């Protein structure tokens, strides 16, 4: 078990390095507007906006083909950021594309996993590791919560779980004060 964990860890680390390198080596020079829009999008790569990923959606917005309220993972804050960037008015999220949900991560039930690799093929960010016919695991740190791996799984062993509140992610909330009008 330990060996497997270490092996996976090393694998994850190594692929991370490789990806970092690849990102620099194969950087696509593109339209600066698309770059800027893409930088605001959450990169969940879920396709709920109706495009094949965040970048295609960014291209569509830049081309004036898509509205700015189609990304559920980005939510209302994301729409506000896009509006700010493009000098437009924010608007509510288009319910056709989905609803805003708390961030979640996929977990594979390792007892039921048959090692079919279908989820690996579906994951847009290579967040799942495992070899054919062996148990697969989601690297929680890399999972964007896009849910694309759920449907292909033939034994329904992948579930989305919300991030548990922890000391390291806990935040002070907006002060709940009621301002009395001055007399």
């Amino acid at each position, binding site marked *: 078990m330990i060996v497997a964990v270490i092996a996976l860890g090393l694998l994850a680390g190594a692929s991370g390095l490789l990806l970092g390198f690849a990102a620099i080596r194969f950087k696509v020079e593109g339209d600066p507007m698309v770059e800027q829009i893409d930088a605001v999008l*959450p990169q969940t790569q879920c396709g709920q906006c109706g495009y094949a990923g965040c970048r295609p959606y960014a291209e569509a917005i830049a081309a004036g083909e898509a509205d700015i309220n189609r990304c559920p993972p980005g939510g209302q804050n994301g729409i506000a950021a896009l509006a700010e960037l493009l000098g437009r008015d924010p608007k509510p999220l288009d319910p056709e594309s989905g609803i805003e949900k708390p961030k979640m991560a996929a977990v594979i039930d390792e007892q039921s996993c048959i090692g079919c690799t279908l989820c690996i093929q579906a994951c847009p960010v290579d967040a799942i590791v495992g070899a*054919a016919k062996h148990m697969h695991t989601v690297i929680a740190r890399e999972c*964007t919560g896009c849910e694309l791996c759920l449907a292909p799984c033939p034994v329904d062993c992948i579930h989305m779980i919300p991030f548990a509140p922890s000391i390291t992610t*806990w935040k002070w909330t907006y002060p709940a004060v009621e301002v009395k009008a001055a007399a």
Partner: protein
Amino acid sequence: MSALFPFHGGLKTVRHKTESNQTPIQAGILPPRLTVPLRQHIGAIAKPLVQPGDRVLKGQMIGQPDGYISAAIHAPTSGVVSAVDQQPVPHPSGLSDLCVTIESDGEDRWIDREPVDYHRLHPSELRQTIRNAGVVGLGGAGFPSAVKLNLAGRSEPLATLMLNGAECEPWITCDDRLMRERAAEIVAGLQIMAHLLGPAEVLIGIEDDKPEAIAAMTAACAGTSYEVRPVPTRYPSGSVKQLVKLLTGRETPVDGLPVDVGVQCFNVATAYTVYRAIHCGEPVISRVVTVTGQVHRPGNLEVLIGTPFAELIKQCGGYRDGVERLIMGGPMMGFALHSDEAPVTKAANCLLAAGPAELAAELPVLPCIRCGACMDVCPANLLPQQLYWHARAKEFDQARDCHLFSCIECGCCSHVCPSHIPLVQYYRYAKNEIWAQEKEKQRAEQARQRHQARMERLEREKQEREAKLRQKAPVRTEVVPHLDPLISVPSPTKGEGSGQVG
């Protein structure tokens, strides 16, 4: 006496020191069960070294520092580990964190303690010993001291090593009592720090409402070049940047550290633990905690880390009537505990059982009248009113431009605001939001790169496949239709770039 350089703003507060500083430090009782959090410091959480069922000795390392900015954690007494799991810890959220729970065997049996002669150690070995003893800033910050004792990479020698004995917050007296009773040990610890840092001067800042502590520390410094400098009693003189300004006149840059202006500063209690680590071979497993406010016998207790706060209250005679809140730290910068079952940590300097008299009455919040009182008291020289407008409107970029991150959350502004606006709450909220957004951005960027790399890999594989197909084209014409990849049943390896051909 040398000149002082007053900092901007600050407050005269009601001291409330005599409630707890009239009696000597008492030894805390040995509780039957100790819950020791593995995160009691700034930096990475310590890695547990024990499992349920393990026997541990007092002083045995049970959590290993994980990385450079991290700290070791030790068993405060001997006994059996009953759990390594999530337990409530003292934190404003009231959430749990990873803790080692030890059932005490009542023997309190130590590991072999080995005092070391620090003059014979290489500086890096000495730092390692301090690191392995779990020494962190005991003034409340909890920053690993070994890191601050390493000046490698700085070209200039250190001008000033400073010891902070100001203890400016109302109610808290643990450093006062420690200085009165254990000045020689504190100075011995300071000598070790000076040995590592080689400063041009060593200054000890103590607020002038502690004449006994000043006298004791001055006596302990006799024969050394160390200077005790009484400073006027003015909150927050014990805040690092303000004390640096007071004693040296140097202004720490907005986004910098005191070491950037040649000063390294430690709390007196930290120096004491360095002494115990080196001269006694004892890691940090206890600390002095002020227990005050609405308890029957306020005072200072030297308690084991991991002792439930309720035990401290019990030892001080229990709660008096009308306790509304239990505060860890002082009334200005402390926070309310969710339960008195949470354990003492290295950062726990004070436990204040607050009743209506100790709590500022919650008055109705009125609109800001732009009076500027907040600006006049801000020791960080900020424009609290401006910060408030931006934080309230969630204009985080502007708040940051107004030096939000220089705010030390001292609470002076909220304290004087005639409109009773909880200003600090807004600043904390804004800081947390900015950090969270930053983390979110990093995650998104990582996902973007991984996605792009995947797309490139798929594209490359597709081309390779096509190239292979082209090579084998003559053979392919004979292939029976059901083997065509487009209509074959999904096979596990399909799309992964192998197996379709041949």
